[in-house]
Structure formats: structure tokens, C-alpha cells
């Protein structure tokens, strides 16, 4: 017993630096956030009172918040499909080539290195200047839309920029998985008379399923927290038409009328959503592993 106490003491000593910063900047905010969510605190005044679940009840009738939730859900659903399909197509196409694999990989991954804020502003130039030029001078009139001002088109614009930025990341994971598919397995399938589509859906796809799971949940997780790309492109506008949950919280807490308690109640709801998704992910991956 004395030995294990000494071991624990040593453990604490070695973990102390990590534990201290972790407690101060992550755990305490996470726990105190739930506490703040039950107050009517405005972030400035010293006195505030506990209102228990009033904030949560108010959130339920907050149309702007639920609109931002709906927008985020739409964004996440489209991104999960679009980004993953493009990434997988690119990965398969690049892996099927004998030469220039490295060049393509470099090009498609590059946007992921650049911040979405910078990438977003570069695309802003395309949406507000280049596309009009192409519509006027090259006769491509289908490009002649208010890409930033019209909520319908700005949603498409946001998806384009977000895909441009994240597809490379997903593609790298898919490529790593594709390289793990044994070549003799594919050869055997080909000898057995399978065409390339059958080979892909019957052999390759089942083999890379773990990577598909990782990528889908990564897109889900980062999608629910989307902020940068929308901030750069539309700022959540026009009005609040393209506001995501993270933006809605940011605005509530740091712009205009500061309602900290209320904003933390929203944060808590976001936390619960993301946590449920992650727990489902862990469960799915565990059962997959058990199958293999």
C-alpha cells in the first residue's frame, strides 16, 4: 500500500504541469459553464441570481437559435456526403495512377494547410469578382448569382469553400486506407471475373470501412462546430440566414447584448449534441472492431 501511494505521488508530480493547465483552461470552464447556464449573469455586473432552468426554457423558444441549429444540421448533412464522396473519388483516382501521385496529393491537401479564414477571403474574391466576369465575358450566365448575398446561393458557396478546404484531409486518410488493401485480393477478384465496379464495392469498400467511419465522424464533429468559413464568407448573413450554432453563441456572448448565462445554456446544448454523436461513434467503432 505504501508503495502504491508513493507511486501515485510520483505520478501526480510528473503529471502536475499538464494537469494544472488542463484543469484551469478546460475542465473548470467546462464545469463552470453548466453553472453559469443557470444564472441570469450578463458578464459584467457583480451580482446575479440563479434562475435554474429558465435559460434552457428560453432557448427552446429562441427561433434564431433553432434556425442556426437547422442551418448547421443542413450544413453537416451535406458536408458528410459531399466532402466524403469527393475525397474518396479523388483518393481512388489518384491511387489508380502510376505516376504523379505525389503531385496530386500535394495539390489537394494544400488548402487544408491554409486557414479557412484566408481561404474564405480568396474565395470571396472569386464569388464577388471572378464569377461575374466569367458570366459577363464568357457567356457563363449560370454563374450570374448573388453568391454571397442570396442565402440559397451562399449556402452553396459555403459548402464549396468548406469542401475545398477539408477534402484533402479526408483524402489523405482514404489514401492511407486504400494502400492497406492487399493487392492479391483485388487480383483474385479480377481473375474471378469481377469488373472494376464490383471490385470496388465488394472488395475495396468493405476493407476501408474503418477509414470511412473515421472520416464521417470527423466531418460530423467538425461540422457541428463550423465557424471560420462562414465568418469569412457571409458573417452569418444576410441577416442571420447562414448563421451556425457556434456563430450564434459567439454573437450572443461577444457582440451586442451580452447575455452570458443565456449563451452558456446554448453552449451546453451544443456540447450535449456533440457528445452524443461522439459516443455513438465510439460504440459503432467498437462493434466494428468486434466484427473483424
Amino acid at each position, binding site marked *: 500500500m505504501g508503495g502504491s501511494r508513493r507511486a501515485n505521488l510520483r505520478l501526480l508530480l510528473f503529471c502536475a504541469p499538464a494537469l494544472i493547465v488542463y484543469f484551469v483552461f478546460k475542465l473548470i470552464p467546462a464545469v463552470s*459553464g453548466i453553472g453559469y447556464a443557470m444564472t441570469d449573469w450578463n458578464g459584467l455586473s457583480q451580482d446575479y441570481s440563479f434562475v435554474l432552468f429558465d435559460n434552457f426554457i428560453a432557448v427552446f423558444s429562441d427561433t434564431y437559435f433553432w434556425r442556426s441549429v437547422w442551418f448547421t444540421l443542413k450544413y453537416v448533412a451535406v458536408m458528410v456526403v459531399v466532402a466524403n464522396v469527393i475525397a474518396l473519388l479523388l483518393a481512388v483516382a489518384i491511387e489508380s495512377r502510376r505516376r504523379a501521385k505525389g503531385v496530386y496529393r500535394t495539390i489537394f491537401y494544400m488548402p487544408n494547410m491554409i486557414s479557412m479564414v484566408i481561404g474564405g477571403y480568396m474565395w470571396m474574391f472569386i464569388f464577388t469578382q471572378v464569377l461575374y466576369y*466569367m458570366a459577363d465575358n464568357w457567356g457563363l450566365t449560370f454563374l450570374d448569382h448573388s453568391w454571397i448575398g442570396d442565402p440559397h446561393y451562399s449556402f452553396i458557396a459555403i459548402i464549396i469553400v468548406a469542401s475545398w478546404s477539408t477534402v484533402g484531409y479526408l483524402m489523405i486518410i482514404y489514401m492511407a486506407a486504400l494502400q492497406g488493401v492487399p493487392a492479391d485480393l483485388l487480383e483474385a477478384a479480377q481473375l474471378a471475373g469481377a469488373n472494376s465496379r464490383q471490385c470496388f464495392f465488394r472488395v475495396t469498400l468493405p476493407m476501408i470501412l474503418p477509414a470511412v467511419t473515421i472520416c464521417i465522424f470527423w466531418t460530423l464533429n467538425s461540422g457541428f*462546430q463550423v*465557424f471560420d468559413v462562414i465568418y469569412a464568407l457571409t458573417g452569418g448573413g444576410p441577416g442571420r440566414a447562414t448563421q451556425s450554432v457556434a456563430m450564434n453563441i459567439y454573437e450572443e456572448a461577444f457582440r451586442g447584448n451580452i447575455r452570458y448565462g443565456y449563451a452558456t445554456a446554448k453552449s451546453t446544448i451544443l456540447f450535449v449534441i456533440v457528445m452524443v454523436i461522439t459516443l455513438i461513434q465510439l460504440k459503432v467503432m467498437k462493434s466494428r472492431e468486434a466484427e473483424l
Partner: protein
Amino acid sequence: MKRKRRISGAIVHTLLIIAALFWLAPLLLALMNSFKTNGELLTNVMSLPTELNFENYERTLDKMNYFRSLGNTVLLSGVSVTLIILFSSVAGWKLCRTKTRLSKFIFGLFVFSMLIPFSSIMIPLYRVVLALKLKNSLLGLALVYAGLGVSMAVFLYHGFVKGIPAELEEAAQMDGCSQLQVFRYMVFPLLKPITATVCITNVLWVWNDFLLPLIVISDSRKYTLLLSTNTLFGQYSSDWTAILSALIIAALPVIVFYALFQKQILKGISEGALKG
């Protein structure tokens, strides 16, 4: 059959080239137009610049205080990542080597908190920053990044240490080395591959993070590259040549970093993702 395959190969190749051009378009268009005058840009955004004039760059270097913002970003990322590596390597190692209920609990705590999304803690975190008087302090912000980053890094180090046999460390301890010495001279060098992964993923994260500096830093002398680019965009929203040149120089450091360490970055990314 063979001919069919060759044709489909050609189609795939053509599509790949088109996709690659699409992917490069924003960078190329920004670069191309950053050398023009505003008049030239407005008449034709698709033409090559008539001459390479760096006047826009001179303007924006000055306007966005480029070198100061760059220095701030380097300092911020450097200190944050150093802290993350120092704190989490020793913690991950010790957590893996100690087999008690407490070690399991602490490890579980780190892993659990990886689920907490940043946007759900940003408001109370801002309170902590204010209370500790860290607002507008780059070193303070580095501490915050350390706090947010250690859990993932501890998890990665913990996993890596599992694969290293403990016998050597025990033998060295018998010979009278202190635990810190064992770690410093024996274990840490062995952790190099995972340290590289932790370093790369965290440098990229801190370098490209926007929301946290946006909240914590309001003093323009402490601006990171992204913050000063953002401010410039707000101030000169119709002066496209200024904005585009600013975007190019803001993206330049990461592109150089990418060119230098591409292999390690791509390896680190896929490893970090598949393990994390």
C-alpha cells in the same frame, strides 16, 4: 478490354487535372491579381498582370504590420507547442508506466475531455482568461492552448509508450538514475516519432486557429497573422489588390512550411487521425 481500360484511364486523368486546377484556382487567381493595379484588376480579373509590380505588397506589409504579426504568430505557436510537448510527454509516459487506479482515472479524465467542443467552453474560458489577467497576453494565450491541447497529446504519447519495453528504464533506475534523468536521456529520445506528430498537428492547429485569438487578443500590437488579415479585410473591403496581396503573404509561411515538411506532415496527419 485493354483499350477500354486505357480510355477510362485517360478520362480519369483528365478529370483529375480539371479538379487539380479547380483546387489551385483560388491561390492562382489571388496571386495573379495581387500584382495588378486596381484599375487593371477591375477591367479583367482573368488576365495575367502586365508587369510584376510589388507595390501592393509594400502597401500591405506596412498596413497589416506583417512582420510584427508574423513574429507574434511564431512566438505563440512556438511557445504553445513547446509547452504541449513538455507537459504531455512526461505525463503520458508516467501515466502509462504507473498501474494504479489513480493513473487510470487521470488518463480517463484526459480522454473524456477530448469530447468537449471548444465552442461550448469558450465563454467560461474567456472568464478564466479575464480573471487571470491574461487578456491581450500572447504567453497567456499559449498557456490556454497548452490547456486545450494536452489531452490529445497525452493520449498519443500514452499509446506510443505502450509499445516501448519498460525493462531498460528499470535497469537504468537500478543503476541510480533519477526518474527525471531516465525520462530526459532515455525515454524522450525514443519518443521522437510521436513527438514529431504532436508537434506538426499542434503547430498547424495553433497557427490556423482564429476564434480563440479573436476573443482573447484585442490589442492590435499583439495581433496574429489571421487577426491582422481579418482587420485589413474589414477596412479595405473594396481594395482587392491590397486584400489579395495580404492573403498571399498571410498564406505564404504555411505554404513554405508545407513545402519543407510535406512528408512528415502527411504522415503525421494520417497517423494522428487513425489513432485519435
